[in-house]
């Protein structure tokens, strides 16, 4: 009795409504997506751009996306695995790298739309809350931050990317409540602390602590930094150089990839509708020819 009750009956499956595919995969929050994509009907086909930031274990993806019935269109994208091109090879998912990626994407988009001379953004990153001022000629590029499924806590790296894009000159509606360095007690953003995070100051502080207390752990944890000669004191200058390099040349490099190898097929290729019909016609012809020959033999 107890066992039979635990099973999912046929009736259960017949009535089960499957969620959307991306919800099954746990990748899209449709409640947020509806509200981000919905464009005023009296703006007709004007695209509404989202500034999408996603983190994987070793990479940061930042994209400017506009929605379309046949699929979202990407206007521009920047990855933190492009940062070695600008001189940053380690720590590619921390707050500072997120800032660099956001900055890279922002400058790339502005250059693509030929607005990069008009909107320089905040060249010297100070950590203060900076919003773009519209110039006389063109209005700034507007996008809406799309965080995806992450929990928006104060100091999350997503907001590092947001700060990068803001300083690049994009117009993204935001508040400074979730930037690293915002204290809930004062209800104010401490620009000094935020600046520290943008320039990897928190990483440098941890490096100093480890060097003092546990030098072995320092060797193992920051081995890649040590290999490249990056120490707690020159982290800030490193990031300054990266910012300057990004502002100098943000265009994406087309990667040269040879066409993928043709692999040997181990199973039959699925035929198209036309191919199947053609095959059937051939078989009928063959049958008729054979039948004709047989009936002639009989006669």
């Amino acid at each position, binding site marked *: 009795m107890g066992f039979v009750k635990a099973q999912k009956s046929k009736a259960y499956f017949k009535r089960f*409504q*499957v969620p959307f595919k991306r919800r099954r995969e746990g990748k899209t929050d449709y*409640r947020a997506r*509806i509200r981000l*994509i919905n464009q*005023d*009907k009296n703006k007709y086909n004007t695209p509404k751009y989202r500034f999408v930031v996603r983190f994987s274990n070793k990479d940061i993806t930042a994209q400017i996306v506009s929605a*379309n*019935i046949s699929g979202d269109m990407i206007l521009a994208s920047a990855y933190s695995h492009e940062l070695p091109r600008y001189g940053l090879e380690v720590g590619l998912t921390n707050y500072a790298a997120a800032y660099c990626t956001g900055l890279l994407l922002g400058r790339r988009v502005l250059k693509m739309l030929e607005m990069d001379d008009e909107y320089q953004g905040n060249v010297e990153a100070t950590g203060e809350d900076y919003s773009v001022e519209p110039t006389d000629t063109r209005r700034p590029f507007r996008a809406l931050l799309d965080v995806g499924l992450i929990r928006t806590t104060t100091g999350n790296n997503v907001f590092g990317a947001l700060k990068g894009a803001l300083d690049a000159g994009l117009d993204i509606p935001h508040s400074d409540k979730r930037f690293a360095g915002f204290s809930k007690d004062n209800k104010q953003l401490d620009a000094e602390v935020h600046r520290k995070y943008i320039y990897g100051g928190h990483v440098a502080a941890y490096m100093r602590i480890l060097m003092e207390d546990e030098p072995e752990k320092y060797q193992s944890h920051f081995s890649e930094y040590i290999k490249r000669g990056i120490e707690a004191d020159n982290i800030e200058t490193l990031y300054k150089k990266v910012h300057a390099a990004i502002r100098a040349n943000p265009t994406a490099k087309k990667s040269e990839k040879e066409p993928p190898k043709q692999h040997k097929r181990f199973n039959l290729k699925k035929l198209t509708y036309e191919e199947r019909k053609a095959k059937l016609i051939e078989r009928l012809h063959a049958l008729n020819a054979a039948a004709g020959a047989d009936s002639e033999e009989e006669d």
Partner: protein
Amino acid sequence: MPAGHGVRSRTRDSFSRPFRKKGYIPLSTYLRTYKIGDYVDVKVNGAVHKGMPHKFYHGRTGRVWNVTKRAIGVEVNKQVGNRIIRKRIHVRVEHVQPSRCTEEFKLRKVKNDQLKAEAKKKGEVISTKRQPEGPKSGFMVEGATLETVTPIPYDVVNDLKGGY
């Protein structure tokens, strides 16, 4: 208790979502654009409570006469007494689908323009009018063998075999 006549009375089935289609509505409804003069079908989506039309308009087709931020103005014909009034309602986009009533007409227009252009090049005169289906044409019947059926005289013995 007497039956009520509220705005949503008698809509239990028509406004309910279809089987296994409840919950979030697919995003293409929000991404479609409507221009003034388009034909649209009004079909209520019970999952969205704002901007619902009255149950009379469920299943009607009308023209767009206004486009606002989240809704569309649709002009629908309604018979009131002895005349038909063109009623103008505002409906949120979730309750509206683009209508295919003019699709066949638009395709035919394009095809006819093409045919007329070709005929003009060749110098022929063609009529692109649609013709109703006429009577079927005549045909010869093939493989028919003639079988003449005549009545046979009644045979008492054969019919009663074994029965008497």
